[in-house]
């Protein structure tokens, strides 16, 4: 007698639940056991002993966003490649390997174009923009 098929997803949920339970349990324990002596000094952010100036929630370098951008595009492309990759072997055994290879390679070639473009334009360099703007300022 076989178990219901959707039960195969049960461990995923169980593990997530276990994580939450562990987290809550840990908190519960620490509430029970840990001392509570709040003070104003403790609740200031750590800045090596100095008085913190301003909020940390300030603007950051656009570089971070550009990296995220490149990432998401590649991410989506690899998502689309996964099903094709997983039937690649099957197609190859059916004798359609050449066709699958062409499909696959033409997809990847666009991916390569993307990375080549970003490389060429310096989006993959972390320091270039800093140096560039530094030069500008010194002039």
């Amino acid at each position, binding site marked *: 007698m076989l178990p219901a098929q959707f039960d195969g997803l049960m*461990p995923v949920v169980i593990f997530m639940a276990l994580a939450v339970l*562990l987290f809550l349990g840990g908190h519960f324990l620490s509430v029970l056991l840990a001392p509570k002596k709040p003070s104003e000094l403790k609740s200031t952010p750590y800045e090596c002993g100095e008085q*913190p100036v301003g909020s940390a929630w300030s603007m950051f370098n656009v570089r971070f966003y550009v990296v995220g951008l490149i990432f998401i595009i590649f991410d989506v492309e690899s998502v689309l490649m996964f099903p094709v990759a997983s039937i690649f072997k099957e197609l190859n055994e059916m004798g359609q390997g050449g066709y699958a290879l062409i499909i696959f390679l033409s997809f990847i070639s666009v991916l390569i174009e993307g990375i080549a473009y970003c490389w060429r334009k310096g989006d993959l360099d972390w320091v270039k923009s800093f140096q560039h703007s530094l030069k500008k300022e010194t002039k």
Partner: protein
Amino acid sequence: MNQTVVSYLAQYEFFDFLVAIFKNNQSLLSFLIYLIFALLIVGMCATIGGLGTYAERKISADIQARIGPNRVGPYGLLQFLADGVKMIIKEDIMPATADKMLFYLAPLLCLTGVFATLAVLPFAGGFIMTDLNVGIFYLVAISSLVGVGVFLGGYASNSKWSMLGGMRGASQIISYEIPVTISILAITLLAGGMGFGTIVSNQGGLPHQWFMFHNPFAFLATFVYFVGALAETNRAPFDLPEAESELVSGYHTEYTGMRFGFFALAEYIEVFVVCGVATALFLGGYNIPGLDIDILPLQAIQFTIFMTKTLLLYYVVIWIRWTFPRLRVDQLMSICWKYLTPIAIFNLVGCAIWMVAFNGKSIAELVFGSH
């Protein structure tokens, strides 16, 4: 349909007996079995994670010609328990300006993301909690939750060190996900499926049957994967998000007590998971050399083999941490995007062409003839 622990056990007769006990409420029975195994795995992983801290200190001490922890228990073996207890009884401090909800949520996200990956890790032939058809893909996807957790942890603290660490951590994790994913794609290509069962059963016990030695591209992909995985787990030499000398303690600067413990636990378990995945994908997984059967007593041997390989890799990870200096942030990015990703794409293309050109045969099969 997915192979699971339950469906594995269901082929034995005592399962029907158990079903009868539970008055045919199969879901409940499955749930209990899963729960037991899940608790086992979580317990084991927590122990491994804990022992990981111990091992780390001990190995680093060896490398640096020190002694390391030796007070608690025999050889200081119970040090991690002492650490755990210490964490629990430490005071929880939260900065007054912090974003409270996210401050709580961040370690939970990390922990959930790492725990959820355990559901598909192939410990032994029948001892995969659930062998999802999208196994490795699921693992990659769900572990990206860690990136969100790290970022939110850094953000929620409202401290400059944390914020920098969080930003760096998130961008590092997502960046290195690309070479890792593409290397995994190459293996998916070779194995013809994303399920861990498929991937492992397409390899063999002996090294020449491993995907690592399937073809030269897969060999390269192994290293790309391993380097990328190191970076994804924020391990040295890629530990910029928590670089002590630069950012105090990175995204968990403001975390204390139990919540810090969860971050640390998540990190150590993730290292274990990553090593396990490397074992399953490239190093032949749980396959017993020379034997190709899947019966109950042999599971123990399979499990041992898997754990041995994984823990060896774990050792390598620690070894690397104490051997290599840390990278600069621009080096980090250029290694990812200018070296690993192009190499990974090259490997993928190479594997695809290899598959078509040699009809899916590995080097060993080509050299020694297929068997």
